C-alpha cells in the first residue's frame, strides 16, 4: 500500500531516466541522508565512529570499487588488499612530502595512483579469464605487499616499518591524526562515499557501464558487436582501482591512523571485500553498502552476544565466530546467491501488493 507506483506518470525524458524513478525510493534515500547527516553526527562517540561507522564507510567504498570490477565487468580480482595498500602508501607519501596539502586532493591523488597500478595489473585480463585470472591477481596482492614491506622509501625509512598518518585537514578542520573529532571524520568519509556512490551509480548506467556488462555477460559476443575488450576491461580495472585506492587512503589515514602492510592489507582483506560484494549482491551499488554493513556489523554482534551475554572465553568466542561466519556465508549463498540487494528487491515486490496479495 505504501510502496505503490501506480499514478506516478513520467511526462519528460529526464523524469523517466531519473536514478530513482519511484517517489518512495527518492524519499527513502532523502530520509537516509537526513539521518546520516543530521542525526548521527550529534549522537556519535569514539566507539561508534571507530568500530562501526568508519569501517563501514571505508569498506563500502572498497566494495563499490570491487563491485565495478567483479559485479559489472565480470573480472574476478583477489588483489583488493594490495590495491588498498597502494592507496594508503600513496596517501602517506603525499602527506609526508607536502604536509600542508588539503586532504581531499591527497585522497584523489592516491586514487589516481592506484588506478595506474590497477591498469598495469589488469593487463593480463586481456589474455586470461575466470579463475586463472583470479589466481593471477593474487600475484598483485603478494607482490605489492612485499614491495611495501621491503623498500624503505615507501615508509620513509622509519624503524618500525609502519606508516602513521600525520595530521591533515580539510578546509582547516583536522580529519587525520590523533586530535580529530569523531563527527568530523565521520562526515568527511560519509561525504566522500556518498559522492562517489552517486558517480558509480551514474557510471554503470551509461555507455561505459553498459559496455562493462556486455563484457561480463559474454566477452566474445560483446567484441563482435563492437565493444573494445582492451579499453573496456582496462577502464573497469582503472575505475575499480581508483575507488579501492581511495578506500585504502581513507582506511589507513582516517580510520586506522597507522598501518603495517602484512596485517592491514593482507589477503584476508581481499577476501573480506569480496565477501561483501557477494553477500551484498554482485552488480548492485546498493548491494555494496548492504554487504559492507553486514560484514562489519556481524562480527561485532557475534562477539557482543557470545562474550558479553553468554560469557564465553575470548579465545573460544573467536573460534566460534570464525565458524559462525563460515556458516552464515554458506547459508546466505544457498538462500539467496544474488545477495542482500536481491532480497531487498523481492521485499519491494511483496510490499507493492501488501496488504492485499492476490
Amino acid at each position, binding site marked *: 500500500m505504501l510502496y505503490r507506483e501506480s499514478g506516478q506518470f513520467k511526462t519528460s525524458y529526464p523524469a523517466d531516466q531519473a536514478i530513482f524513478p519511484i517517489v518512495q525510493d527518492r524519499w527513502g534515500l532523502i530520509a537516509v541522508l537526513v539521518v546520516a547527516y543530521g542525526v548521527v553526527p550529534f549522537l556519535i562517540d569514539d566507539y561508534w565512529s571507530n568500530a562501526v561507522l568508519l569501517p563501514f564507510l571505508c569498506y563500502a567504498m572498497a566494495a563499490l570499487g570491487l563491485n565495478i570490477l*567483479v559485479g559489472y565487468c565480470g573480472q*574476478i580480482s583477489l588483489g583488493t588488499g594490495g590495491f588498498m595498500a597502494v592507496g594508503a602508501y600513496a596517501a602517506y607519501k603525499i602527506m609526508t612530502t607536502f604536509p600542508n596539502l588539503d586532504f581531499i586532493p591527497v585522497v584523489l591523488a592516491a586514487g589516481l595512483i592506484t588506478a595506474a597500478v590497477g591498469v598495469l595489473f589488469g593487463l*593480463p585480463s586481456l*589474455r*586470461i*579469464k*575466470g*579463475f*586463472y585470472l*583470479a*589466481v*593471477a591477481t*593474487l*600475484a598483485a596482492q*603478494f*607482490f605489492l*605487499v*612485499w614491495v611495501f*614491506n*621491503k*623498500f624503505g622509501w615507501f615508509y620513509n625509512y622509519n624503524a618500525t616499518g609502519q606508516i602513521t598518518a600525520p595530521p591533515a585537514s580539510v578546509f582547516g578542520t583536522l580529519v587525520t591524526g590523533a586530535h580529530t573529532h569523531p563527527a568530523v571524520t565521520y562526515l568527511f568519509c560519509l561525504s566522500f562515499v556518498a559522492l562517489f556512490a552517486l558517480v558509480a551509480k551514474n557510471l554503470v548506467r551509461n555507455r561505459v557501464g553498459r559496455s562493462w556488462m556486455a563484457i561480463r555477460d*559474454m566477452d*566474445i*559476443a560483446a567484441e*563482435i558487436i563492437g565493444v573494445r575488450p582492451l579499453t573496456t576491461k582496462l577502464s573497469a580495472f582503472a575505475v575499480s582501482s581508483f575507488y579501492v585506492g581511495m578506500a585504502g587512503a581513507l582506511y589507513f589515514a582516517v580510520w586506522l591512523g597507522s598501518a603495517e602492510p602484512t596485517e592491514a592489507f593482507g*589477503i584476508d582483506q581481499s*577476501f573480506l571485500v*569480496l*565477501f561483501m560484494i*557477494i553477500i551484498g549482491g*554482485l552488480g548492485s551499488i546498493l548491494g555494496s553498502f548492504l554487504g559492507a554493513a553486514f560484514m562489519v556489523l556481524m562480527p561485532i554482534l557475534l562477539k557482543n552476544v557470545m562474550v558479553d551475554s553468554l560469557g564465553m572465553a575470548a*579465545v*573460544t568466542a573467536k*573460534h*566460534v*565466530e*570464525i*565458524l*559462525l*561466519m*563460515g*556458516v*552464515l*556465508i*554458506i547459508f546466505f*549463498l*544457498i538462500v539467496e*546467491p544474488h545477495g542482500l540487494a536481491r532480497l531487498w528487491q523481492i521485499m519491494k515486490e511483496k510490499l507493492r501488493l501488501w496488504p492485499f496479495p492476490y
Partner: protein
Amino acid sequence: MSQDLMFLTETVISGLMAGVMYSLVALGFVLIFKASGVFNFAQGVMCLFAALTLVGLMETFDLPGWVAVILTVAVMAGVAWIIEWAVLRHLVNQDPIILFMATIGLAYVLEGVGDLVWGSDVKVLNLGIPQGAWDWGLDNLNLYVEKLEIVAAVTAGLLVAVLAIFFQKTRVGRALRAVADDHQAALSVGISLRSIWVIVWTVAGIVALVAGVMWGSKSGVQFSLSLIALKALPVLILGGFTSVPGAIIGGLIIGVGEKLAEVYVGPFVGGAIENWFAYMLALAFLLFRPQGLFGEKIIERV
C-alpha cells in the same frame, strides 16, 4: 663436481622436493575441480583439519598411528558427505564464483571446528617418518637431502600411481571421469552425481590427509598449514586446473623456480621473494598459454 655446480644441484633438488609437497596440495584441488567444477579453496584447510584430527586422535585416545589414520580417513569421508549434503546439493547450477565463495565459507567452518575440537596450539606430528638428512647421499654424493622429503616424494609418486589406476581401471573411476567430461551426459547414463561428489571429496580429503601429514611432520600442525593452499594456487594455474600430471609437473617447476629465484635473484632485491615469485612465474607463463601447461584448451562459442 665443482662447488658451484654442487650448490646448484642441491638447490634444484630441494626445490624439486618442495615442489612435490606443493603438488600434493594441488592434487586435491584438481580432483575436485575436474569432477565438479568447484574451485575448492578449502583444500588447504582440509589438510590442516585432517592433520589436526590425526594428531588429536593419536594424542587424546593414545591410538597407534595406523588406527588413527584409518579413523581420520573415515572422518574425512564423513566431512565429504556433510559437505555434499549441506552445501553442494543446494548450489547445483550456480555461478562458479558462488561455489568458490561457498568453499571459502567452508574453509572458515572447518578451521573453526578444528580449533574448537582440538585446540589451536602447535602440535607435533610423529608418525614414525624418518627425520634428518639422508646419510647415504651425504656420504657418497655429498648432497644434503632431507629424509622426510624423500618419503614425501615417494608417497606422492605412489599416490599418483594409485589414483591413476583408480581412475583408469575401476568402475567408480570411470564414472568419475565421465562426470568430469560432461555432467549431463553422465547423469543420462545413470551415474549418480551426488555419490560421485561424495566420493571425489573423500578422495580429495585423503589426499589432503597425506599432504597434511607431510607438511605437519615437517613444520608441526598449526594454522599456517592452511596457508600452503595459497602456495598450491600458482601450481594449479601453471599446470592447468584439470590435469593431474599438470599438478605434479607444475609443482616441480614452481618448487625449483622458487628456490632458484630465492638463491640467485633474491639477494639483489632484498630477499623474501618466495611469497610472490611463484605467482609471477605462473602469470608470465599464462600469458603464453592461458589454459596452463596441460589444461584443456578453452573453446568458446557465442
